């Protein structure tokens, strides 16, 4: 007996929920050969605005959790990703026309990168922080704190899943919340990834995923006064100089375009932190 296919509707991920685009728009996602795969939501600037509101609301809870706890929560996501390997492999084979071996490599690399970043959650402070030398009877300590809400354009040229993971994990480690515009042509793995997030222990709003046109959404995120950092990793094809200028108006931290996928590095964690320096008297011993 023939069976009808059950195509999946891919929606946005905002504030822990899966809404359709406020604009009601969708776009077709196809294989490299042009075979229809699915309809994905075409996010509008208002979806981006809603996502920033959700991300802002989640900052205090996520940044207030201990580094150890954040590490556990992030590692839990890697566990769930591992359980969904087959689904991600299938989606990457379909959207990026990869061989099974290449898709498997990408999924495994993404999971490994995630685990690598999760491990840094309770360690990066020791590396990036410092006890400053002073000539007086007091301590002077510098410690990194999360910047707040980070808007990200995920890598657009290849590796949709690995690219997404490589930009959101470093921002999450220190306690930032993110609004990320996924790979435009291959957004399916990003939305499947958000299903993993929704069933893990990450509070709603910590990660918000938009699908659609980075060229349309990025300018609104770059100029948004309530966004603290702008990661232009996948903005090479956009007018990224204009985006940097817009970001400068509201004093955002900005990270520039990257060719390919950014390699895992502690620098990517530390770039989304602010250094807090305090002093404290030495007690009498």
């Amino acid at each position: 007996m023939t069976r009808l296919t059950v195509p999946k509707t891919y929606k946005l991920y905002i504030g822990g929920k899966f809404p359709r685009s406020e604009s009601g728009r969708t776009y077709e996602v196809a294989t490299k050969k042009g075979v229809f795969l699915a309809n994905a939501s075409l996010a509008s600037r208002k979806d981006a605005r809603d996502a920033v509101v959700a991300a802002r609301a989640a900052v205090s809870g996520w940044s207030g959790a201990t580094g150890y706890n954040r590490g556990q929560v992030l590692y839990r996501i890697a566990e769930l990703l591992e359980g969904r390997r087959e689904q991600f492999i299938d989606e990457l084979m379909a959207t990026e026309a990869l061989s099974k071996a290449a898709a498997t490599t990408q999924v495994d690399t993404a999971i490994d990168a995630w685990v690598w970043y999760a491990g840094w959650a309770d360690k990066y402070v020791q590396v990036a922080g410092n006890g400053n030398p002073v000539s007086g009877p007091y301590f002077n300590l510098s410690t990194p704190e999360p910047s707040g809400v980070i808007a990200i354009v995920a890598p657009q040229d290849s590796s949709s899943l690995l690219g997404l993971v490589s930009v959101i994990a470093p921002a999450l480690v220190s306690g930032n919340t993110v609004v990320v515009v996924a790979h435009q042509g291959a957004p399916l793995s990003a939305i499947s990834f958000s299903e993993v997030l929704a069933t893990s222990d990450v509070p709603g709003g910590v990660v918000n995923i938009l699908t659609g046109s980075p060229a349309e959404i990025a300018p609104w995120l770059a100029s948004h006064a309530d966004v603290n950092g702008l990661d232009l990793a996948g903005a090479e094809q956009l007018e990224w100089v204009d985006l940097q200028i817009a970001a400068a108006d509201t004093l955002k931290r900005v990270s520039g375009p990257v060719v390919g996928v950014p390699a895992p590095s502690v620098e990517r964690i530390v770039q989304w932190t602010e250094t807090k320096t305090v002093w404290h008297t030495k007690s009498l011993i």
Partner: protein
Amino acid sequence: MTIEPAIALAPAERAVNLIGSDLTEKSLKLHLDGLSGVDAVGLEQRAAGLGTRSIKTTSKAWALDTIIKLIDLTTLEGADTPGKVRSLAAKAVLPDPSDASTPRVAAVCVYGDMVPYAADALGSAWSNGADNGINVAAVATAFPSGRSSLPIKIMDTKEAVANGADEIDMVIDRGAFLSGRYGIVFDQIVAVKEACRRENGTYAHLKVILETGELNTYDNVRKASWLAILAGGDFIKTSTGKVAPAATLPVTLLMLEVVRDWHLLTGEKIGVKPAGGIRTSKDAIKYLVTVAETVGEEWLQPHLFRFGASSLLNDVLLQRQKLTTGHYSGPDYVTID
């Protein structure tokens, strides 16, 4: 902000005019129970329909400014201090320090004992009974529960008026209303209205809070609105903000319909104030549409319509900044309440 002194009818005069000189609890009850029932499904459908209008660009700019002009900026917490009231007053005078073209709010709404601080902090911006300026509204009559004896409620009101309150927000005795003793509610409103009289014979504006969240049915809301108007209220107000649900669009629509009916019947204009639970510009714009479509645009003035709100103002300011600058603003750019 103008308050028409012509409203200074003697308390209960409206009821006497409408029901007749033999005004008794029985005749009042017969009158109120004779009001037609509310079509709840139709009301909610109508309210939902009014909430779907899309207001954009210049209309939105006008709507945002109008909302600010209609706000009663409110702080009604047990933890209120003179300092908190002063900062509220400063915000009422200059809602957005980054944009001097922002209009001022209609009034600040505080507890009775905070009225002197509010009036003092408003300074020259305080209307003090004059035509323009920011009013000071005080909640009175054992707000928010209304559970105290009439002499105490009257004292509460008189003190607030003597302190300089331009407007009194009183609560009705919901217990008496729900148990059918309309006469008690009526007499209390009349007595409080009388207590609103200033030494020079003018009256402080009286807003009657129905606390619709506790009235349970739309029929009760209609009766309570009618009762409050009969007893001499200048405004009918949905809620204290301390009970959920507070203001909802259907309830406000219903109260506006009562006001419209009263206007058709007598030519008098009664104000409406939804309070509590209106937090976003989008919601507030729905109320503006409802007012304009139900009683007419004439009601979109501070002496006939108000929003009781605190966090709404910040959201309106953010939207206003978005319209002015072209990019989204954030909570860092407005004051923390």
